[in-house]
């Protein structure tokens, strides 16, 4: 019997019991739909988080002072004085896989303009900082090397600060504001960046030359962190290693000594977050996979009923020349059609479900071709696997007994 006839006969047998076939497929439909939807939501949130992380900066390498411990008590990292501006100089001079380096000095305090005031963080940085952190000046200008050298009291404002001090849409360029009672001239404004992945407002900041912040606002001689850009994403791990090596050297840390700083890279962070969301996605997928398994068992169940019901037909087919493998193929075709058809409907249904869930959670749901192919492959395997045993039973019937079956 050729395959088109096989297909036709199997289809007809299914059409004879439309409702039953549909209910059997429903198990597969729900299973596939939930797998597709779960994977799509997982993939969507993964990409959303990845996007947020990459918007943080370009191939960023971050250096933070390590946690300080005194007598077993952690003092936190910001209290550490481990990093100095000399580290930045060393990195600029020696690190070949790094394209830009900027120190970061943080101070927080009250900012006043006329009768308005707000509490915010002032980041003291060098000119390179904007490109490293993918910050964009939309009006005005950024400060220059001279202003850094002279500890000029100039600043660039984030959108939230502008809103708080001047009201939305105002143009503060050239105006003078008071940061911790020191007058600063606003020379630029930053393009708004929205919320970070952790729900932090990334526009609530003021940027000023690190010299100004370090001496005039924070009054410290160390820096809080170093930000650098690796020359490319591929070079990110190399840059990380290089930065660590250079800093160990400048900090004179012995071979066995522990670092007094931590180096992190954006790609590392990306990988960590990706692997976490991957695990979550697989977990969700596996749970959904269980319902697919249950659907498969449903197919097996109904195939057994079908074989029993059609025992006489099987006997007849055998008596007119149907071989065991012809009968096997006929029933296998039926179960495979059931599962594949269920798979098709499941993919469509799952896609709609993912879209719906995506719009409700404001996370894009991304149905990857891979997961669709996977769903079909799994459906085919389910069809063969769960159809095999009933089909085998049919093929092994004794034609004489089958013909007499009541």
């Amino acid at each position: 019997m050729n395959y088109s006839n096989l297909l036709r006969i199997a289809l007809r047998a299914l059409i004879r019991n439309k409702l039953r076939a549909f209910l059997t497929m429903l198990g597969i439909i729900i299973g596939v739909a939930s797998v597709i939807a779960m994977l799509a939501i997982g993939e969507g949130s993964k990409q959303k988080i990845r996007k947020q992380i990459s918007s943080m900066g370009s191939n960023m390498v971050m250096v933070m002072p390590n946690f300080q411990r005194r007598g077993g008590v952690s003092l936190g990292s910001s209290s550490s004085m481990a990093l100095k501006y000399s580290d930045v100089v060393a990195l600029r001079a020696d690190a070949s896989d790094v394209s830009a380096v900027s120190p970061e000095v943080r101070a927080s305090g009250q900012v006043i303009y006329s009768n308005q005031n707000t509490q915010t963080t002032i980041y003291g940085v060098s000119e390179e900082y904007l490109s490293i952190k993918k910050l964009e000046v939309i009006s005005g200008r950024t400060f220059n090397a001279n202003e850094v050298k002279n500890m000029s009291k100039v600043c660039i404002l984030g959108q939230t600060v502008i809103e708080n001090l001047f009201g939305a849409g105002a143009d503060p360029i050239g105006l003078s504001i008071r940061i911790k009672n020191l007058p600063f001239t606003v020379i630029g404004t930053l393009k708004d960046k929205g919320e970070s992945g952790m729900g932090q407002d990334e526009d609530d900041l003021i940027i000023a030359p690190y010299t100004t912040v370090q001496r005039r606002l924070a009054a410290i001689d160390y820096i809080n962190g170093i930000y650098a850009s690796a020359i490319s994403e591929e070079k990110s791990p190399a840059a990380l290693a290089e930065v660590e090596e250079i800093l160990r050297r400048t900090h004179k840390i012995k071979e066995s000594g522990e670092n007094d700083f931590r180096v992190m890279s954006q790609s590392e962070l990306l990988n960590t977050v990706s692997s976490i969301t991957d695990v979550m996605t697989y977990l969700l997928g596996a749970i959904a996979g269980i319902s697919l398994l249950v659907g498969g068992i449903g197919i097996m169940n109904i195939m057994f009923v079908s074989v029993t019901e059609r025992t006489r037909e099987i006997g007849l087919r055998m008596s007119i020349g149907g071989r065991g493998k012809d009968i096997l193929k006929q029933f296998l075709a039926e179960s495979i059609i059931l599962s594949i058809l269920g798979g098709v409907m499941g993919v469509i249904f799952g896609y709609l479900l993912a879209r719906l869930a995506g719009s409700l959670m404001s996370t894009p749901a991304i149905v990857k071709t891979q997961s669709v192919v996977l769903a079909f492959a799994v459906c085919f395997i389910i069809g063969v696997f769960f159809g095999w045993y009933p089909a085998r039973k049919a093929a092994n019937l004794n034609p004489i007994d089958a013909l007499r079956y009541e």
Partner: protein
Amino acid sequence: MNDIIIEIQGLRKDYHVGEVTVHALRGVDMKIQKGEFVAIMGASGSGKSTMLNILGCLDQPTHGDYLLDGINVKSMNKDAVAKLRNQKLGFVFQAYNLLARTTALENVELPLFYNPKIRSKERKEAALRALEAVGLSDRMHHMPNQLSGGQQQRVAIARSLVNDPVLILADEPTGNLDTRTSFEIMELFQELNEKGRTIVYVTHELDIARFATRNVMFKDGKISRENMVTERLNAREILKTLPVEAIEEFD
């Protein structure tokens, strides 16, 4: 060409039911020539059904040889036997065994689906010819439940004819039919036999057996009597004498 279609020697068949061995056939010798019309008779338990199953290659004998059209069936494997059934044999059952919700034409086509050498066009033509031979070409698109018992049995006979078999085997073909319809079926069989078909059928009704050319009587697993039918009945003649019933079939 070999004129002997069936040759059986020393055929035995034992069944094991639990620890008891049932001797269904205890040594049967039989020859059937091409063009014969044989009725196998016997009480239930006489071994006639077992005989028919073995003749139809649905069952294998325990001992003895069975040559169908010169081929020894005993040495063949399952798939080869299935092929043999497909190409050399036609079956007619007491309960018709038509596929439900499948048209007469498709029911008749069915054996040819299992013959990979036959194309779909040839298949349809052969099925139409077979339906014509049983006088049902106007009913080819009817489902079995739209046909009377007699018509269903005719479709089944058409199905047995479609592969042009060397032998048609019928197991109580008139068992589910009334007298008049039974005679109509026997008329069809006689007609096919006249055209040269070899037919073997099982019956326990004496008058049905008298349409055959030869009767073989089974008793306790052996042939107890074998005779040529002397006063053979002609179904067509008998049908003329029967009163025509007003409602004999429905459309």
